[in-house]
């Protein structure tokens, strides 16, 4: 990647063992200044370990961590230019909100009134103006989260580390905080590193995302690229919904491939649509997202290149959307097993949703397919 400024965080060949357990397996990573970066993966993939390594709470077995160009090997957590928002928020229960926010200012040489003004300013930034005198234990989950943010940001760290900060909030609150965090990050311009297992959260908030499995980075990309061009079946499966159909490679030349897909027919795929990540035993697969295909009403035509017949197997109504599980005509052609795929359609107000058992037509274009070798 061409970026002339030096990275804010750099991890080189990071290895971390807990006894025999290999938690981080050679992490190479560089995070730019001012970036909103996410570490995404299922639980136990090492994302939190990596965050704690950056914060200085975990030693590393091998490799190096650099923050703002400085080696962090001998720098303890309390001297690193990072601050963390903990998953449990870690609000000090014996201190008031203002005392919590001012905790890190003890060695700041500024006079008391100035510090008090800083605290008030930090609280205002997170929307908690006037809450300074409250007892910490009297706060709601969302408010605790904001106090934790104010407490970290008041120290103007170079990097703010967020360990699943939204996982304890209810859905409405979480969506609201996602937007607020993005705004806050733009406002303060600090590099944010977020750990999350929620792919939607990562897609909404991040400039770039590193998807981790079993202590390794499986793919590092911008959200759009990650969603549209997943590097492996596993990444594709983890991020959003992806349909998979077995494919037979008919021809391969100059990076292009021609594949025969039961139910969809023969398609020609350019290099950009072929993922060459470690193949698994299941053979070549074609993947596509539910929203890339369109269910046609009788008599309706589409600009999309191809059409396929199918029968509705299941209808899952979501209010704004409906998911249809479809059995593709001719999908059993290759190995005798009929396959269903999931298609999503935005509901149009006042129009009936087709019912189970209806024969329908699907419109799609080869440009939305990804071939996994």
């Amino acid at each position, binding site marked *: 990647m061409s970026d002339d400024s030096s990275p804010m965080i750099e991890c080189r060949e990071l290895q971390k063992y807990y006894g025999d357990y290999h938690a981080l397996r050679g992490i190479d990573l560089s995070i730019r200044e001012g970036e909103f970066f996410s570490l995404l993966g299922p639980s136990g993939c090492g994302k939190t370990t990596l965050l704690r390594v950056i*914060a*200085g*709470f975990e030693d590393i077995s091998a490799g190096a961590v650099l923050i703002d160009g400085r080696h962090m090997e001998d720098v*303890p*957590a*309390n*001297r690193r230019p*990072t*601050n*963390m928002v*903990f*998953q*449990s928020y*870690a609000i*000090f*229960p*014996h201190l008031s909100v203002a005392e919590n926010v001012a*905790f*890190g200012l*003890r*060695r700041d040489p500024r006079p008391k009134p100035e510090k008090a003004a800083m605290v008030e300013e930090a609280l205002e930034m997170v929307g908690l103006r006037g809450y300074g005198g409250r*007892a910490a*234990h009297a706060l709601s989950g969302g408010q605790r989260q904001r106090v934790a943010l104010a*407490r*970290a940001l008041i*120290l103007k760290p170079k990097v703010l580390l967020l360990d699943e900060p939204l996982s304890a909030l209810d859905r409405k609150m979480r969506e609201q905080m996602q937007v607020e965090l993005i705004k806050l990050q733009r406002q303060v311009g600090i590099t944010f590193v977020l750990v999350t297992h929620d792919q939607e959260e990562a897609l909404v908030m991040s400039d770039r995302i590193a998807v981790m499995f079993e202590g390794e980075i499986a793919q590092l990309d911008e959200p759009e690229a990650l969603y549209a061009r997943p590097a492996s079946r596993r990444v594709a499966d983890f991020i959003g919904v992806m349909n998979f159909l077995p494919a037979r490679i008919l021809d391969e030349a100059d990076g292009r491939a021609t594949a025969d897909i039961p139910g969809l027919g023969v398609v020609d795929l350019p290099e950009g649509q072929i993922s060459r990540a470690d193949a698994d035993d299941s053979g070549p697969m074609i993947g596509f997202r539910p929203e890339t295909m369109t269910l046609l009403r009788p008599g309706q035509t589409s600009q999309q290149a191809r059409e396929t017949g199918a029968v509705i197997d299941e209808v899952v109504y979501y209010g704004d959307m409906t998911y249809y599980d479809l059995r593709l005509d001719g999908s059993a052609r290759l190995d005798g097993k009929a396959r269903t795929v999931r298609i999503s359609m935005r509901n149009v107000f006042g129009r009936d949703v087709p019912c189970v058992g209806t024969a329908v037509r699907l419109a799609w274009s080869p440009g939305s397919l990804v071939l996994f070798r």
Partner: protein
Amino acid sequence: MAKRGMDAEARQGFTLIAPPFIYALAILAAPILTILSYSFLTDGYLEVVREFTLDNYRQVWTDPIVRTVMLRSLMVSALVTLVTVVLAFPVAYYVSFMVRPERKSMWLFLITIPFWTSYLIRVFLWKVILGYNGVINSSLTGLGIIDEPLTFILYNVNSIVLTLAHAYAPFAILPIFVALEKIDRSLLEAGRDLGENRLMTFWRVTLPLAMPGVIAAVLIVFIPTIGDYVTPELIGGGKIPMIANLIQVQMLALDNRPLGSALAVTAMLVVAVVSLLFLALNRRFLKVKQ
């Protein structure tokens, strides 16, 4: 029709708690009331005259000997409390923070081992250790470090403090351990993350959060030690009486029950006042909110 009196559930509850309640009343309240009423009666030498008087209290509150012994008891138990809690804290801290989780219950078990022998025997053993021909003196003379046995290690306040501090150690370790266990470990990481080193994190986070346990330890050690009878008798050699010894003398040796009762009630009041003062001070200065 409106129900009158207790409903069935409440009646059942009262029936259930009645036996222990009556038992507690008989064992605790009745003796206290007896002592309280005795303290207002007149001593007729070897008998109690049923006449109301405040003379006993007048005597207790003006007698310089009582004052000396009372102050000594307070001083000794304060010292014992200080020593016990200061020594118990590192032990509790070690078990809570350093010992692996699966080993913690074993450590707690080990801490209770001294309780497998009776209190009296443990006190006796300290006499054996500290005595004129005791373990310490004979080892030191045997090694040629001292020429004649040390006499300042037995029959004085130091030895009383040492013995009581040992006897009450688990009572201090356990509540502090529980308080430390309750501390969310991420709070300590947050302290470090916000720029404080380990020592300052301990001072600003761990210690304030452990205070409820420390306060419990202080009260649990202070209240029984002030009335301790055996240790001053054996380890103090009877030369350094504490308030319990004085009460025993009045009650049994001199058979002056009214005066002994007044002493006992006074001691109880002093303990109550000191404990309440301590709690109030804590609330005021440490602001422990949990």
